[in-house]
C-alpha cells in the first residue's frame, strides 16, 4: 500500500465509527481508475493491539456484547489506531498546546 492510499485508508477506517459524513468525504477522495467500480474494502485481520483494546472494552462490560458486536468494535478500534498514526505524522513542538484555554475560576466574595 503506498503512502497516499495508506493515509486515505487509515482515515476512512478511523471515521467509520464516529462520523459517517467524514467517511463519505474521505472515500470520495480516494483515487479510482476511470470507469472502475468501487472496490469493497478488503477485510484485514485486526492487529493484536486492536484485539487487546477491544478485549478491554469487553471486560468493562462483560455481559453486553455478542460476537458480532465485538467484531464491529474491534474493526472500529483498528481503524482508529491507523488514524492515530496520521496524527503523529504532523510535527509539533513542546510549545504547541491543545486548542483550548483553561481559565481559573474565582467565585463571588
Amino acid at each position, binding site marked *: 500500500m503506498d503512502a497516499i492510499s495508506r493515509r486515505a485508508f487509515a482515515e476512512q477506517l478511523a*471515521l467509520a465509527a464516529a462520523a459517517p459524513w467524514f467517511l463519505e468525504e474521505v472515500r470520495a477522495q480516494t483515487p479510482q481508475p476511470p470507469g472502475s467500480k468501487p472496490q469493497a474494502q478488503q477485510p484485514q485481520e485486526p492487529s493484536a493491539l486492536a484485539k487487546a483494546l477491544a478485549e478491554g472494552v469487553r471486560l468493562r462490560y462483560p455481559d453486553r456484547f455478542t460476537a458480532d458486536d465485538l467484531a464491529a468494535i474491534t474493526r472500529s478500534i483498528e481503524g*482508529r489506531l491507523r488514524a492515530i498514526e496520521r496524527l503523529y505524522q504532523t510535527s509539533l513542538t513542546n510549545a*504547541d*498546546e491543545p486548542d483550548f484555554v483553561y481559565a481559573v475560576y474565582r467565585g463571588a466574595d
Partner: protein
Amino acid sequence: MDFAFLSVVELGRLLRQKKTSATELATYFLDRLERLGPKFNAVVTITRERAVVEAAAADREIRAGKWRGPLHGIPYGVKDLLATKDYPTTWGAEPYRQQKFDSDATVIGRLGAAGAVLVGKLAMVELAGGMGYNQANASFTGPGKTPWNPDYWSGGSSSGPGAAVAAGLVPFAIGSETSGSILTPAAYCGVTGLRPTYGLVSRHGAMALAWTMDKLGPLGRTAEDCGIVLFHIAGKDPKDPSSVDRDLKGMADAPTKRYRIGIPKGADKDIQAEVAANFRAALKVLEDRLEIVEDVELPDLPYGAVAGMIIAAEGASAFDDLLKDGRLSQLTAPEDRTGGYPALAVSAPDYLRALRVRRPMQRALDDFLKKFDALAVPTRTAVSTPIDKSFREGWPGVTGGANVIGPTNVVGVPAISVPNGFGVQNLPTGLSFTARAFDEGKLVTLARLYQSRTDWHTRRPPAAIG
C-alpha cells in the same frame, strides 16, 4: 391565503401591512405540521399551547405599535436537541424520549426576544449521528424523508428541519452541524442552510455531541432569511464560554465587487453527472461577478483523523451515561448500538494530540482560505440516498468530489448551501460556498446574489402542496 412557501421577509411584510396576524400564521403552520409532518417523519412535538401564547403576545405588541423586527410574529421550528421548557427534548433517541428541561436554550430565548413563535420541535438523527449511523432509519421517529420524494432521505442529522422547511411546515428552522448536518439536509431537501462559524451562536441548552465542533444555524427558504435569523441568534452568551460577538451587518450588503472563488481540485469529477452539471451551471449564472480559480488544493493535513478522534472522544464523554448503563442498545440504528464503545479505547494523549494538531491546521486553512472570498463546491456529490439502503449502498458508483465539509467543520469556518437544480429522481442538488471564519456576510451576499438570478429556491415539492 397560501402562506406555506413564503419567505420570512414576505411573511413579515404581510404582518406589517396587517394582512395577516401572528395568530393566523401560527395556526396555519401548526395545522400543516400536524397534517403533513408525519408524511415526512419531520416532527417530534408540536408546541401548540406555547405557540398560541407567543403568537397572541406578538399580535398584542404589533397592534400596539411595538415592532420587534423582521422575526416578530414569524413561526419557526427547532431540531429536537434544543432544550425547551415544558416540552420533551428527545435528541431523537429512545433513551431520552421523556427528557425535559426547566429552561429554554439560549437560541430559543433569543428568537423569543425577537418575537418569533415556536411551533414545533423537529426530528433528527439520534444523538445527531454521533454513534456512527449508516442509514436513514436512525431515529425513533423513523427515517427522515425528503418532501421531493419520500422514498429518499431528507439528510441528517437535521433531518426534520430540512424536511419541514422544504414542505412548507415552518418558514425557517434551527438545525445543528458537527460535520455536515445542516448542509446535507439543505441540499437533499432543496432549501438554504447556513452553518455559522464555531462560537458565533451559543450552544447553551443544545445537546452536545462534540463540544469543540458543534454549531447551531438556520435552514430557510432563502439566504436572506438565513442571514436574518443568524443576526438574531448570534452573539456572546455568558452561559457558553465558547461564544463570541461579531459584527454581522455585512450580511445585508449588496454585492459590490467581483468575488474570487476557489474551486477545489476534483470538486465535480466522478460525481453524479447532474450534480456536476448543476454546479457548473450555477457558476455560469454568476460568471460576471466571479473570478474563478480552478483546481485549488487544501493544505495536506489529517483532517479526517483529527475529526474522527475529536468526535469519538468528546461524543463518548458526552454520552458516557449511555455507555455506562447500556442504554445505547435502545437506539434505532443497529450500528449506533455499538458505535460508542470503540471510543473507550481512545487514550487521553491521542485525543490531546488531535487538539494540538488542530491549531496549526486552523492557521494553515485560514492562510489558504484568505486567498479567496469563498470556495465553491457541490454540497453533496450525489442526490439523496434511498431510505431503504445504507449510505454505502445508496450511490455506489459515485467515488469523486472534493472533501470540503470535513476539513472546514474541524476548524469551524462557515458555509452556506443553496438549491441549484434537480438531479436523479428529480431530487434537489445544492451549491455550497465556504469562507474564512466570521465571513458569513460574504456567504449570505453571494448566496443572495445567486438566488436573485435563479428560482430554484422557490420550487415547491408536489408531495407538500395542499
